[in-house]
């Protein structure tokens, strides 16, 4: 990756929302099937969660994969080898 995630256009839609993608799973806590995967900011930072929407039991809390584009911004030199000065 390089500079692809440094600049983004302003959204064209006036109001913006996060899409919660339904996942086929059963909640281990409440037995419900209303499970979704979506990006969040938790107490550590950006994460992708798979959560029951009825009881908020987390089935998975993952570091975002590149294809999640979460957060959108990504430093260009993130994966470069570190020098003494960073």
């Amino acid at each position, binding site marked *: 990756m390089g500079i692809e995630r440094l600049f*983004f256009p*302003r959204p064209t839609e006036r*109001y913006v929302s*996060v899409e919660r993608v339904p996942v086929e799973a059963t909640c281990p806590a409440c037995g419900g099937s209303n499970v979704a995967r979506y990006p*969040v*900011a*938790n*107490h550590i930072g950006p994460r992708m969660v798979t959560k029951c929407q009825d009881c908020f039991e987390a089935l998975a809390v993952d570091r975002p994969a590149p294809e999640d584009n979460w957060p959108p911004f990504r430093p260009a030199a993130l994966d470069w080898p570190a020098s003494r000065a960073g």
Partner: protein
Amino acid sequence: MSATDANVQAVGRERYGLDVASAEVLAFALHNTSVQMHRALMRSAFSAVVRDVMDCTSSINVKTPHGWETVAEMGPSLHAPVSGHVCNFVLEEYGEENLRKGDVLIHNDPWRGAVHQSDVSILRGVFVDGELTFVLESCSHLVDMGGPVAGGYPTGARYTFEENLRIPPSLLYAEDVPVRGMFNMLLESTRVPQLNLGDLRALYGSVVVGERLLEDLCAREGRDRVHRAALYALDAAEASMRAAIARVPDGDYSAEDVLDDDGVNAEPLLVKATVRIRRDRMELDFSGTERQAEGNSTTAWCDSSRGIIPVKMLLDPQSLYNGGALRPFEAVMPPGSLVLGLPPTSVSDHGSIGTRVTNVVMAALNKALPDEQAVACDAGNPMFLGLQGVDTRPGRGHAPFGTFVLPGASWGATSKNDGLGFSTILMTGGVVRSSVYEHVEREAPVIFWEHAFMIDSAGVGKLRGGVGVVVTVEALAPVEIACVADRIRVGSPGYGGGGRSMPTLALLVRKGADGVTPAPSWNGVTAVSDFSPVFGVFDEQGRPNPYDGQLGRGAIYEVSKFSRFMLEAGQVLRICAGGGAGWGDALEREPVRVLNDVLDEFVSPEAALADYGVVLAVADDGAVVVDEAATSRQRQRLAEERQRTGRETISCFRPWPLTGDDVERLRRPLAERVEELRARSA
């Protein structure tokens, strides 16, 4: 020892290997270390915004199975929840393995967790027994980091390239040796290198203080014990917050509010928050919020954690804050929204959007709570100013200057008492203070003529909002002003029938008859003949009038955020800032409390009559008292009128005086004015 105590001790030993008393003492030692770091930072700082206003934070972060978490912090609440994210962003990018003892990193990038580019963080690793055990973070608002507008609020900027210096995680000290190139860049990119150098050294000093204290603590107690105590402190904060959330009924609670504008377009911007509660977990979902602003009223990440501020204050105010309190939360942040702007959009005005986030989260949470727990909206960010220019005063060497004017703001009312006035706002937790004007006068060629309460600025209610303020400042040499304000269209919304506060306005005030002092204000009220509007809502006669006025009528600006406004030598700017909103029906406020507000000149007798339904009279001994019978009748009349019109009460002195003579009549003894009002109303 009771069975409960014994159980608590057993759990403590099993989980942390510590008795509870030791865990508490060690946890407090960590808290005290952050306090000492913060005191060192403030005492050593050069700029007024750090030294006086306290816009700075120190925190201690520890590694847990989750990641780096803030175990102790001291500073304004607007930084507190941000600290852990900053630590994780910086260390994941820089690489913990690349840190050496004595290394200090510097960072201010909003897309890596910083509040905005003016808030510069430094981070230092503390190694104990050769292991990276703590990461200390201190953060100060450096008064000028370059860019076209001093102070870091280039209102009107659309892109981050038009703002101040943006620093990704970088080495500032290499094993305690300053990195010359980084220092040179920082000092050569600012109008005030003397202040920045002092503040950078203060930041460095604060983390050195923290390191020494922690090394000493670990030497006495053992690294492992201290670390386990830190885990205990985090778990305790988490447990306290979870217990508080669990007491709130499950559900989805939504609220909306607006920013007046973004400084580029004079159109309101919608902020929406849905507080979703399930058991002891909470999501703060900002879906449905307006897309990122064209101007700089957008944040890049920091509001993902700042939404916790009103939750903590409403649900779990007693326990000491640390990052454990964040564990029950997740924020759902739409990319490209006002709360998660996409680069390269400008993101410097975090104050406007941040205060609105806390307002709207609180409004949403209020819906989940019984009335007696709900809190009315605070003033938000009514106004602050950045001042810059060249100081042409004798002996100043025509040096560039840059400083801030923070007039302060007020809190909304609660079910128990009126809002706190002449203070700071919820988002800052009452720790970021208003300016010390004598210091601002030293740094910039200005003179402050007044900083006082603004009459009829608080939202009315059974419990009224905190009172707003008036600040009058004159330029002694040309001063370029950047203004960040909001709530100029309409004041902060009340709770449960409480009224809105006064919309904020700004005036250019003429000099009085002596040609020296500004035309007088009576508790902030200035004759129409003595001012030209800068911004606000004014009617056809030029009076501030939230009911029948029009935004920007006759004013220089329609927007509340602008920069490069020149105040020439001798010109006077008067800021009239709205207060907090009211709680409950104003017609239920105890009449004696209204009388006391009138005697204190927080509320005018006119507003007492028109908004509170309290009729005043003059007793035989000349004292102003409540006419109980007339009050009862007036309140009945007002209740019927409100039923008919449905009109919301918005505070503002009325009738606003047109001439200087009208203002002079306001200065007559209160008893005389009350008699006149009674005669007029009869």
